[in-house]
């Protein structure tokens, strides 16, 4: 049923008829143009599928055939859609012209991009000084400042005044730890002072945390007075600011941390920690009396955090510049989403003016090592793809647990694996623009060899 005309014939005929509307259309070669009139293809749909110019050719062909006395109308019985909008040849041309043509412009349009800053961020996060030098009553070689942000971490709204810092865990007795962590500390495990030295000298810890876990009544029940000698040893061994932790026993910790605060008098040590489950007032007051900083620990609940901060300020009299929050770190794959969002909400709340929340935050990043993906040799699930080498899996688990919370607003990270410490420092400092490095040409990434 198709009518076949070769283009050369068509061109000749068109030339004879002086058809103006084909100007600008160049058809090369001796192509056969087929219009299957019986299929009713000529119409807006035809124009849409084959483009405006071709439709125009079709219309010309139809007109031409008509001029030759060919019964075009009877052949053009298009399908339902085309029929509904009347396929009379004269209107076909109109319909074809109405379909927007795909047209590539000669040049790119010009455009300017602009975006504002977040105007709701009006309150600065409190800046807190950790450590004190001789000049201000301590014995540290230098001080560290954390907090002071005016925007979410790494946002362009305002530069971060202080970089995130890492404190490496030291324990007052050997403890069980994942193989990928233990291998770095085996030689110093029996001597907290050596342990602290190694953390600072070899692993570039900004601070060290001395955990007095032997004081736990269920472990060694070391008396507070005796246990805090380790704090003195560590203060002697390193000159970085320090953090002091208890055993986690809510009764014993009050005594241990109060004593530890006395031993570290004037050092602006971070005392870990006061919580709603223990005598926070005693711990808060022990911090104030000895010019130390109080870590306020709550469990993934923003309102508890507000309550504890408020009580520490109003009841225990802890000054604003001596509070750091630990809103709890749930590790990657073990509830990190809760920890992340809790911290992000705390930081946003603080920036928006909640004065019970605008304090620096701390993360117990070592919790990452409790996640089975971080330490198990193989997957317990037989259908999992290979879990590979756990010695490589563990450190990245600690890196990403810490880093994701850095993005939510954490200022100080309690960590253990030295590789994880190095990567966390590198990525956070890179995102602050502190690491100068020549950036490779990324435009040829497609053809890179890896």
């Amino acid at each position, binding site marked *: 049923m198709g009518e076949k005309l070769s283009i050369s014939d068509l061109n000749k005929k068109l030339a004879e008829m002086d058809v103006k509307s084909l100007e600008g259309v160049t058809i090369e070669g001796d192509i056969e143009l087929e219009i299957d009139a019986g299929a009713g293809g000529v119409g807006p749909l035809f124009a849409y599928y084959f483009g405006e110019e071709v439709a125009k050719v079709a219309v010309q062909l139809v007109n031409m055939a008509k001029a030759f006395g060919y019964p075009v109308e009877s052949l053009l019985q298009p399908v339902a859609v085309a029929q509904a909008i009347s396929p009379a040849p004269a209107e076909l041309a109109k319909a074809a012209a109405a379909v927007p043509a795909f047209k590539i412009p000669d040049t790119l349009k010009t455009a300017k991009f602009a975006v504002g800053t977040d105007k709701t961020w009006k309150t600065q996060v409190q800046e807190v000084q950790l450590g004190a030098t001789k000049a201000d009553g301590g014995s540290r070689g230098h001080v560290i400042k954390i907090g002071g942000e005016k925007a979410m971490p790494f946002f362009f709204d305002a530069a971060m005044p202080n970089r995130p810092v890492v404190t490496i865990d030291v324990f007052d007795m050997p403890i069980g730890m994942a193989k990928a962590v233990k291998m770095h500390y085996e030689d110093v495990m029996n001597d907290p002072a050596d342990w602290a030295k190694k953390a600072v000298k070899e692993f570039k810890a900004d601070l060290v945390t001395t955990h007095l876990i032997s004081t736990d009544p269920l472990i060694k029940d070391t008396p507070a007075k005796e246990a805090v000698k380790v704090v003195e040893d560590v203060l002697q061994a390193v000159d970085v600011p320090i953090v002091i932790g208890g055993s986690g026993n809510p009764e014993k910790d009050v005594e241990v941390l109060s004593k530890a605060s006395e031993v570290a008098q004037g050092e602006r040590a971070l005392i870990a920690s006061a919580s709603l489950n223990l005598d926070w007032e005693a711990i808060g007051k022990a911090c104030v009396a000895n010019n130390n900083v109080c870590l306020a620990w709550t469990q993934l609940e923003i309102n508890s955090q507000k309550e504890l901060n408020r009580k520490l300020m109003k009841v225990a009299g802890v000054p604003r510049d001596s509070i750091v929050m630990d809103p709890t770190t749930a590790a990657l*794959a073990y509830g990190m989403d809760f920890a992340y969002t809790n911290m992000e909400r705390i930081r946003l709340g603080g920036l928006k003016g909640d004065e019970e929340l605008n304090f620096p935050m701390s993360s117990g990043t070592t919790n990452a090592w409790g996640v089975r993906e971080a330490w198990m040799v193989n997957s317990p699930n037989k259908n999992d793809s290979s879990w590979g080498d756990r010695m490589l899996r563990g450190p990245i688990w600690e890196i*990403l647990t810490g880093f994701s919370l850095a993005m939510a607003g954490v200022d100080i990270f309690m960590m253990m694996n030295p590789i994880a410490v190095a990567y966390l420092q590198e990525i956070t400092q890179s995102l602050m623009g502190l690491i100068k490095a020549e950036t490779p040409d990324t435009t040829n990434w497609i053809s890179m060899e890896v």
Partner: protein
Amino acid sequence: MKETSPLNLYKFLPQTNCGECGEQTCMAFAAGLIARSRKIDECKPLFDEKNQKKYGKKLTSLKDVIAPEVALIYVGAGDKQLKVGGEDVMYRHQMTFFNKPPFAYDVTDAMNEADLVERVKLIDTWKKFYIGNWEEVEMVAVRCVTGDAGKFAACVKKVMENTKKPLILCSFDPKVLKAGLEVSAATRPLIYAATKDNWKEVAQLAYDYKVPVTLSVPFDLDGLKSMVATFKEMGLDDLVLDPGTAPNGEKLQESLQNFIKLRRASVEEGQKDFNYPVMALPINAWLTTKDPVRGAYWESVLAATFVIRGADIMIRHSIEPHSVMPDMHLRFNIYTDPRTPVQVKPGLYKVGKPTEDSPVFLTTNFALTYYTVESDLASNGIDSYLLAVNTDGIGVQASVAGGQLTPSKIKDAFAEAGMDFETTTHKAFILPGMAAKFSGELDDLYAYKVKALVGPEDSGRIPGWMEKQWPPKK
């Protein structure tokens, strides 16, 4: 969608309360649209052609109002089709992030066939079980390294023979892209990329083959926006933006800031002329190192950066377990809907190969709690039964306090799960220590035919508890 009031969506609905969508009223449906639990096309009358005259205008307006702030693009075809973009919030707690950025792992046309097939199969079959789901890799990115259109097309073909996962065709040469499209256009791959140099030819390809296209203008947001404006004017609307991913140095800071700027422009400022999904290239980590561990770690860290802040799709290289596993979990955690606690299906689970002598534990269906207990049992080789009681995904301590876990609920849950204590030798189950106060009431409920033992408060202490307390004394 910025709208938060159902009332403002209600006015675009038929307001007939016909109930076809399953809601009793149009207002309830409007509330469902706000919560993203209902989809617009579930309102059948609105889409019925017969009602075109009556509702046509409403439908158009409604579509405008509920459109996501970051445009939603579909890549791929059929059941493997992926949603890219479609985000509505800046921070996940404001609602949720909706469409996790697909990870596309690379292959190249310079690989020999055996290596190529092996890698595609690895990508195709990679999986990891996590909180009741199989996490997978979504896409394959085919890079043209040879510059040879024929080789590229052959490579694309070979990839398609070995996976049904959607593709990204990567080349700046329109001839190469065209050759790839010739063999793959029906699967609707994403093409990468139109640049300031090749945009005319690539636009023509996107038009001819009806495929989504990436616009790449690194580190120049004005330039990227001008490209977007030009493509939109041509009627090309399936766009993905590549604002540049620098793997290190100060440019990396700039990269992240650009992602944040783009997300803020679309989500917080409603800049509808520049709100397309954004692509990150963590693969660029490999431009800075050849060390396999360093490369994998750094790529992982870059991926985390952009999963958290603003990427809607990304091209990756390292499929080593120490790179892909942490990133999968990170993406899962960030894209988990914070409005609904993560839950496991309530019921009785087997840990290991339990027998009639094995202990029977119970916990709640809060996924984290459940998997912690399960893991503590499994990793200690304790063959056992573990009942997950439906507490609406709330943990033990909170559900005991909040009444979602009660003695009668525990008894009902055992009955529903078909647990017959008569078939056990011990006729006992072990309560979580946090629910110790239920033991007396449970003994009454079971008329002392089944004993409720009190277990430790932390499931990590189950092995020690077992040594002293199991099997129970008669």
